[in-house]
C-alpha cells in the first residue's frame, strides 16, 4: 500500500516537473528573439538613423525616417476613425444586450476578429486603391478595420462590468441618456476603454499584410495621405527579403524600433489595468 502511494506521488511530482518545464521552456524562443533583435537593432539606432530616409540600394547609411513618420500618420488616422466608432458601437452593445442589432453586430465583431489581415488588405484594395490609387489613407482604413473589434469589445466588456446603479443614479437626477453615458458611464469605465485602445494600437502598429496593397511603401519621406507611404512593418518586410546587407541592417534597426513601440504600449496597458484593477 505504501509503495503504491509512493509511486502515485512520484508520478504526480514527475507530471508537475514536466508541466513546469514545458511552461517555461516556451518562453525561450521569445527571449531569444527579443535579445537578438535588440542586439542587432540597437547598434543601428542613432540620430542619423531616425532622421534620414533609406540610402539607395548598395550604399551604406541612411535611416528610416520615412517609415517612422508613415507609421505614426497611418496609425494615427486609423485611431481617429476607430476610437469613436469603436467606443460608440461598444456602448450600443453594452446598453442594448439581447436586441437583434446587438446580436448581429456582436457576430460581425467576432467575424472581424477572425478575418486574416491579408484578406482585409485585398478588400480595401478593391474599395479604395483600385479607384483612387495606392495611398496612406487606404492603409489607415484597412488598419481601422483591424482595430475596431478590439476597441468595441474592450468598451463593451468594461461597461458591462459597471454596476447598473450608477446609471440609475444619474437618470434619477433627470440627467438625459446621452449625458448619462458620456459623462458618467464612459468616464467610470475610462481606464478599461483606454487600455483597450492602447492594446489595439499595439496590435495594428505591427500589421504588415493590410498595408502591402494599400499604403504600399515609399522610399522618400512623405506626408501626403493620398500618396503611398512607408511604414515600419512594411520597411522591415521589404528590406528583410532584399539581398543587400546594408538594407538588412536598416530592417534590424526598424525591427528594434517597432519592438520597442509594441513593448512600451503593452507595458502601458499592463500598468493601466493593474492600477485600476480591470479584467480585459
Amino acid at each position, binding site marked *: 500500500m505504501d509503495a503504491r502511494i509512493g509511486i502515485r506521488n512520484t508520478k504526480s511530482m514527475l507530471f508537475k516537473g514536466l508541466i513546469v518545464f514545458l511552461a517555461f521552456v516556451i518562453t525561450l524562443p521569445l527571449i531569444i528573439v527579443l535579445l537578438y533583435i535588440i542586439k542587432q537593432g540597437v547598434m543601428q539606432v542613432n540620430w542619423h538613423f531616425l532622421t534620414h530616409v533609406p540610402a539607395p540600394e548598395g550604399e551604406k547609411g541612411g535611416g528610416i525616417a520615412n517609415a517612422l513618420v508613415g507609421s505614426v500618420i497611418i496609425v494615427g488616422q486609423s485611431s481617429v476613425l476607430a476610437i469613436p466608432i469603436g467606443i460608440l458601437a461598444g456602448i450600443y452593445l453594452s446598453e442594448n444586450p439581447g436586441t437583434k442589432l446587438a446580436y448581429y453586430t456582436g457576430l460581425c465583431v467576432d467575424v472581424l476578429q477572425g478575418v486574416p489581415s491579408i484578406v482585409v488588405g*485585398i478588400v480595401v484594395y478593391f474599395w479604395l486603391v483600385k479607384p483612387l490609387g495606392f495611398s496612406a489613407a487606404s492603409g489607415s482604413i484597412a488598419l481601422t478595420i483591424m482595430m475596431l473589434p478590439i476597441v468595441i469589445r474592450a468598451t463593451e466588456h468594461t461597461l458591462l462590468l459597471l454596476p447598473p446603479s450608477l446609471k440609475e443614479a444619474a437618470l434619477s437626477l433627470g440627467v438625459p441618456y446621452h449625458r448619462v453615458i458620456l459623462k458618467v458611464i464612459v468616464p467610470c469605465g475610462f481606464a478599461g476603454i483606454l487600455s483597450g485602445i492602447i492594446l489595439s494600437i*499595439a496590435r495594428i502598429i505591427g500589421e504588415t499584410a493590410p498595408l502591402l496593397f494599400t499604403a504600399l511603401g515609399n522610399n522618400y519621406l512623405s506626408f501626403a495621405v493620398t500618396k503611398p507611404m512607408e511604414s515600419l*512593418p512594411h520597411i522591415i518586410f521589404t528590406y528583410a527579403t532584399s539581398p543587400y546587407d546594408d538594407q538588412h541592417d536598416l530592417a534590424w534597426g526598424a525591427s528594434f524600433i517597432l519592438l520597442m513601440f509594441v513593448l512600451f504600449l503593452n507595458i502601458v496597458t499592463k500598468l493601466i489595468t493593474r492600477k485600476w484593477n480591470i479584467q480585459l
Partner: protein
Amino acid sequence: MSMSPSDTSNKKKPKKDTVANATVDGTIAGKEQMTLMKNKRLDLSYVQMKWETVFRRILIVMSVIMLIVVAGILATLIVQSWPSIKSLGIGYLWGKVWDPVNNVYGAFPFLIGTLLTSFTALIISVPFSYAISIYLGEYNTKGWLSNLLKNTIELIAAVPSIIYGFWALFVLVPIVRSFEMKIGVAPYGVGVCSASLVLAVMIIPYAASLGTSLIRMVPSPLKEGAYALGATRFEVIRSVILPYTRSGLFAGILLSLGRALGETMAVTVLIGNTSAIANSFKEVFFGPGNTMASVIANEFAEADHPVYLSALIELGLVLFFVTVIINLIGKRIITRYTHH
C-alpha cells in the same frame, strides 16, 4: 405615455414652479434666481430630449457600420472572385497545378501548404499551451512568477509577425538548413518546416490564455472532493480538471488554429514561395511551398490577368470562410461553456 412634450404642459409647468417655490423654497436666499434657474432647466430639458434621440440614433448607426463593413468584405470577396468561380468551377479547389503563365489555376498546393503548416504548428503548440494553462491555472495561480510567465506569454502574441519572420529568416532558417543536410533532403532551409516552427510559437498564447482562465474557473468543491478521496495532484488534474475543461480547451485550440490559418507575414517570409507540389511527404515538409495567405501576399501585386487576380481572391474568400467559421465555433463553445 408619449414622451413628446405637448404645448399645454409646456406652458403650465413654469406656473407650477412658482407655486412650489412659494411654499417650499421660502427658506432659500435668492429665490428669484432659483426660479429662473428652474425655468432654464425646463427649457434645457426639451433640448436634451432631442439630443437623447440623436444620441441613440448615432449608437445604432455605429453598430450598423460594423454590419456594413462585414457585409462589404464578404460581398467584395464574392464579386471579385466571381470570374474565377465561373470559369474554373469547384474543381479549382483540387486542381494540382498552379501555372499563371499558361493560365492554369489549381488551389490544391496552397490548401495542402496551409493545412500542413497550420496543423504541424498546432501539434507542436498544444503540449505547451496545455502546460501553460495547467501551470498558471492550477499549480501557480498567484504571485510574481505566475504574473511574469503570464505577461511573457502575452508578449509572444504582441510581437509583430513580420519580426518573427525576419528573425527566423536569419536565425532559424540556417539551423533548419544544416538539419536538412544531416537527414539528406535538399537543404532549402525555408519551407513548411521553418514556417511551422515559428507559427507554433506564435499561436501558443491564444490557447494558453483561454485555457488558463478556464482552468481557474473549475469549482474548487470538485477538486476538493477528489483530494478528499486521496487523489494526488496529478490525478486531480487528469480526472477532474481536464475532463471538466475539455470543451473549453478545445475551443482554445480552435482559436489558435484560426490564427495559424490566417497568419500571413511570418509565413510569407519563411515558406519559400513555390507553387509546385513535391512528390514525397519528406520533400513537401522540408521543401519550400506556399499557403493561401502567402500566395496572395506574394502574387497579388503581379497578377496581370483577370482570372489570375480573381483566382487569388477566391483563395482569400476560402480563407475568410474557413477562419471565420473556426473562430465562430470556438467563440460559441466558449460562450456556452462560461454560461454553465
